[in-house]
């Protein structure tokens, strides 16, 4: 009967078996500690991913009028969802649009973040504390609320800009026109993201020992020269990382255009890839097509982030 006690895990239960000093850690405790995370990971990530892949190869088949019970059945579809998704012109144009969006947003946002971070780090510049707080403040505003605020500032009937511009003899351009809407949405991204990236870059600057450019200053180098020749090269790892993460985040844009959509007809329900997925799943009730596009986007995202991180590792961190 007592033999069973040999099974009792060391230290996890009540009885602590005699152990050598500095002996091995208990065997079962770590599994108990990671169990909640593992269960949630399986339920919320692995199973949904598996289910998406499964759905992407299925379709709904209608027999008869499709009204009676049992007349709608889920059957194997092969690659049909992928073929129709990848040849859908609205999906392809949304892909193109999101790439363009990322191309506009990321350089502007990181350029501003770098500029402000350098100014916060420079000498004889005033308002540094005030500016640091103010520029970081948008990080605390949810993107939906930020989009609402900017959306109203873009609306000529509500916005203060037409009145200001007309005094200067200018008129306000239509910020929701086909060619301007992308910039209007990108501006919200810039507004929300500059502060966070500024803080990241600024921290990298602060982590640099001052002796590095003390010598340059004694030799008469200007602040601009020090920034361009010493500071920026030194913090290039931080710049690359903020770049990689910004690209990945901007390609997933959903909240901003979705929030602005009620204000304009320019932003269609399938304007961006993730809006297209939402539109397919909940407006067209076609979870199968939505699943196929989800798989395509998730795979693309994975390859891209893996590739970008590999590249940055190779060139920025090891090449030094």
């Amino acid at each position, binding site marked *: 009967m007592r033999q069973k006690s040999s099974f009792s895990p060391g230290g996890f239960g009540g009885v602590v078996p005699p152990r050598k000093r*500095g002996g091995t850690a208990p065997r079962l405790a770590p599994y108990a500690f990671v169990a909640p995370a593992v269960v949630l990971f399986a339920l919320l990530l692995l199973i949904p991913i598996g289910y998406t892949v499964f759905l992407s190869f299925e379709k709904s088949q209608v027999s008869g009028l499709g009204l009676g019970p049992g007349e709608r059945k889920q059957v194997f579809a092969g690659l049909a969802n992928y073929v129709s998704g990848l040849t859908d012109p609205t999906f392809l144009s949304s892909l193109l649009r999101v790439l363009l969006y990322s191309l506009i947003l990321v350089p502007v946002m990181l350029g501003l973040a770098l500029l*402000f971070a350098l100014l916060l780090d420079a000498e004889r510049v005033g308002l540094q504390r005030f500016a640091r707080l103010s520029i970081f403040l948008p990080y605390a505003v949810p993107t939906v609320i930020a989009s609402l605020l900017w959306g109203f500032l873009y609306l000529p009937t*509500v916005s203060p800009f037409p009145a200001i511009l007309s005094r200067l003899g200018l008129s306000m351009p239509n910020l929701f026109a086909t060619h301007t809407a992308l910039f209007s949405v990108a501006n919200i991204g810039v507004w929300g993201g500059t502060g966070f990236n500024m803080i990241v870059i600024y921290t990298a600057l602060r982590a640099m020992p001052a002796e590095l450019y003390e010598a340059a200053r004694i030799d008469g180098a200007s602040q601009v020269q020090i920034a361009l020749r010493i500071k920026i090269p030194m913090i290039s790892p931080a710049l690359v990382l903020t770049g990689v993460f910004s690209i990945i985040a901007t390609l997933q844009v959903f909240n901003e255009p979705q929030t602005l959509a009620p204000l304009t007809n320019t932003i269609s329900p399938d304007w961006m890839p993730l809006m297209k997925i939402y539109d397919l799943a909940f407006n067209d009730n076609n979870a199968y097509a939505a699943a196929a596009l989800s798989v395509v986007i998730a795979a693309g995202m994975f390859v891209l982030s893996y590739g970008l991180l590999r590249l940055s590792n190779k060139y920025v961190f090891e090449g030094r």
Partner: protein
Amino acid sequence: MALLRVAGALTEAPDVAGERQRRRGGGRRLSPLPTAVLLLGAVYCLLPVAWVLVASTKSTAQLFNTFTFAPDGSLWSNIASLSSYAGGVFWHWLLNTAIYAIGGALLSTVVSALAGYALAKYEFRGRSALFNLLLAGVLVPPVVLAVPQYLLLAKVGLTDTYWSVLLPSVLSPYGIYLARIYALAAVPDEVIESARVDGCREGRLFAQIAVPMMVPGLVTVFLFQFVAVWNNFLLPYIMLSDENKFPITVGLYTLLNRGSTAPSLYSLVVTGSMLSILPLIIAFLVLQRYWRADIASGAVKQ
């Protein structure tokens, strides 16, 4: 390392900067151009916030007809009509957001602390495989997961419940990653070993010895998840159909959506936006101070 730097940025920057500024603080002349550029940046970032503060004081008619940077006296009547909209549902939305963000972030911090501590301080079979799997989870776009999560939760009848929003907020692969780093840095092996020699059980060891050492790091984990849940739009937008369970983001979005046919709702959206970012801005300023206190205690440095 990458993500660690980001986390460190929030906790470290303000204090180090303050110190340097104090050290540097001579009476030297300011350069006007860089100062002006910083001022422009600050104005750009404060502009929408300033606008909404002013616009929330205007009635609907004035919102559409007067210069919107001139304040007016309709703030209280706006708040009153917002409060009476659909039986005071706005305050429900704010309360729900607090429940989702605080509840989700707290549970997430507990799960992350447990898993991060185990990954950092125990040798066990499958540890590195598990860690790599969790890391890969950071890269999965959450938005792609929302649709299958909805379909699966619908099968077990959990959609349109508080749990449908809370449950997906509890798992944060990034939080586990951070917690692991903090556990590695803040909990010395010798402390664990001597506690074991004294006969301390593993559960108590974690709760009473490891957690207090990890607290500053766990606060960061909490803050990141809090901001993420507070920001979340797509997940509750997909999961919920009952207005009374909406968080503020989904609530104001639906209000705006209705406003495109009834512009009188716009002033409600404006007032609602103002009221919903006010606590955020206050919390933000308070947290700034906390982040400093955090680093003063010497934790989270790596």
